[in-house]
């Protein structure tokens, strides 16, 4: 057997193992393989002994130290034989076509899944299906996000009806009042938005701020011309939707 075939076999064995992370090897075997691998690729131990606390790192270091004087050829041989003998489906004369491999250490195996759904949730939270994240970047979506820069840009461009309604019958000011974006409300009112404009259900922007309990927004609307006696379809005023305390806070000068 020539050296080059030995090293090829070593690579194949290594690649095979890394391509099949599902293969269950005992920790002793993993540690031995690790030791041989280090000897083949690096030689003698060249790192400091990990602290007592890091027992995993320490065990690996120990495994390497134990075989560090093994000549590289022997280490490769040992590596190959170990892989062959662990009753897994690999023989040195058989190659595995797909040769993508993982990096050197077996640390990767503990692969924490990054995908959210891959995690074990301890505190379960509300789940949502794939949602129509309708990423149309129009002035309504910027208003919902509170992106004041984009909103002013579009308003500055001039060709926009500030009191226009979307498919839900809501204006920009309704959305800003619902989401609680005070600066957007200020901008919209400054640019002439109708502060008492009604939705299909006859709600004013103040209704939205009161129901959603955005105190700063409700105060601003109230003190900039919002009519608090307007009743919605349920025959309720904006203040009927909130606590007395909230109402008092809104009215307060």
């Amino acid at each position, binding site marked *: 057997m020539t050296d080059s075939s030995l090293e090829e076999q070593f690579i194949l064995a290594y690649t095979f193992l890394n391509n099949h992370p599902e293969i269950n090897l005992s920790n002793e075997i993993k540690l031995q393989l690790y030791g041989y691998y280090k000897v083949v690729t690096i030689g003698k131990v060249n790192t400091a002994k990990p602290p007592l*606390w890091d027992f995993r790192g320490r065990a690996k270091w120990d495994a390497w130290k134990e075989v560090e004087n093994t000549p590289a050829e022997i280490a490769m041989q040992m590596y190959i034989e170990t892989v062959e003998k662990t009753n897994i489906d690999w023989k040195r004369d058989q190659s595995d076509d797909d040769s*993508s491999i*993982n990096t050197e250490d077996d640390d990767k195996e503990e692969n924490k*899944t990054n995908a959210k759904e891959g995690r074990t949730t301890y*505190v379960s*939270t509300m789940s949502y299906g794939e949602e129509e994240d309708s990423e149309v970047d129009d002035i309504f979506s910027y208003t919902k996000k509170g992106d004041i820069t984009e909103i002013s840009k579009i308003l500055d461009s001039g060709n926009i009806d500030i009191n226009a309604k979307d498919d839900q019958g809501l204006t920009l000011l309704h959305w800003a009042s619902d989401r609680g974006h005070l600066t957007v409300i200020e901008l919209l009112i400054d640019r002439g938005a109708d502060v008492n404009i009604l939705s299909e259900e006859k709600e004013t922007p103040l209704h939205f701020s009161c129901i959603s309990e955005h105190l700063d927004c409700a105060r601003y609307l109230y003190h900039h011309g919002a009519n608090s006696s307007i009743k919605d379809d349920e025959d309720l005023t904006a203040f009927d939707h909130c606590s007395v305390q909230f109402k008092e806070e809104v009215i307060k000068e």
Partner: protein
Amino acid sequence: MDEQEHDHVFDGEGEGSTIDKMRAKQEKKNMKKAKKKAAKISAGGSKADLEDTAAKQKELQEKVRMLVNQLAIREAIQPPPSASSSQKQKDMSSHKFWSTQPVPKHDETIEEDGPIEPDTPYDQIRKEPYVLPKEFEWVTLELNNESELNELYTLLTNNYVEDDDAMFRFDYSGDFLKWALQPPGYLKTWHVGVRVSANKRLVAFVSGIPADIRIYNSHQHLVEINFLCVHKKLRSKRLAPVLIKEITRRSHLQGIFQAVYTAGVVLPKPISKARYYHRSLNPKKLIDTNFSRLPPNTTLSRLIKKFKLPTETSTPGLRSMVEKDVPEIRTLLNEYMSKFNFVPVFKTDDEIKHWILTKDKVIWSFVVEDPETKKLTDFFSFYYLPSSVIGHQVHKTINAVYLFYYAVKESDEKAIKGRLQGLMKDALILAKLKNVDVFNCLDLLENKLFIDDLKFGPGDGFLNYYMYNWRCKGMGSDKVGVVML
């Protein structure tokens, strides 16, 4: 090399695994061979030979390193298929620990119910604790001691999470832990902790409590395992298997050979899988804290209106449970449980008193008393387990309650549905009055009868139910009655 440390950290599950032993043997043979070969090489060589070998070895190492690097680069460009999700099952062979335990395999077809291994005779039960890595020591926690209770509380609140970017974590109170861990007949030796020997810091825990359950037709007195926790810094070091083996050993010593446990992860082999459901009571706060999400095309106002509840309950005769209700509730609950396949059996009034009777800020129970006969017809209970919101400026805590046990007397399906909807709506109202932000439940029992109508939404959490050393057929979550904390 330190054999002790190595053995016990990396091989917490080693015992009893013949495969592992065989592998170890092979491994030793390999080792001997290697040493022989190495000896041969160095024996015959002259000095020149040796130098030559060293140079060759260097060259070889360089070559191999380059090849490996090339492969690694290719791998970086073409990453392997993404890792599996936690709700997917792994092969039994890849469960280094669980494959050595008396639990059914994922693909096993189950013909007959029964234990997987016979009870271990007392004289064959290991009498001394399993060996921990030498930096650590076992400790039995005394929860009546305020400072030890506090240590447990601290361990769990800081570490009952997966990783550092978790947004929420359970905020168990001391009273909650005592309720969960000190039921009638509890054993202190089943409150198992692990401390760092040097500084006595508590870094791991697992608990067992005695319980009576019925699974299909089999009544069993067993142990319920819960609160398995390993400090974040000590994860993936195979400490969990040692804890599990130790609590198993301590159960064996009490003559108990079966256990019930639940986990979010899929292990071999779930009896049932339940899903969490959440009912918003305070939608705005839940959205602010990212517990739930506001769909881009929905107004917050609409969502708030959707979840609005009356301020008064509607079931006539509904009142708080009091101590004198205990015997009647026991009968009512045990009877109601008879229609499910995996249920608790409450054998004494003391158990009901412990588990069900209201304890403020821990568990709340309500009963329905027939105004005429004065007999109790129904009851429900929910326990309080807040979660801390990590890193939020305004909100520190989400006040959550979880539906616990309940019973209704109706027997006709349609009547049950109507009754349950009324009762659970009242439960929501009562929770809301206690300033609770979210009402949670699993899809166990007959919860599916009201989940949709009462506007519960599915959660991203699942809970798998398991039994240790017991083989039986699986069941739908609507056949499960056991509610674990």
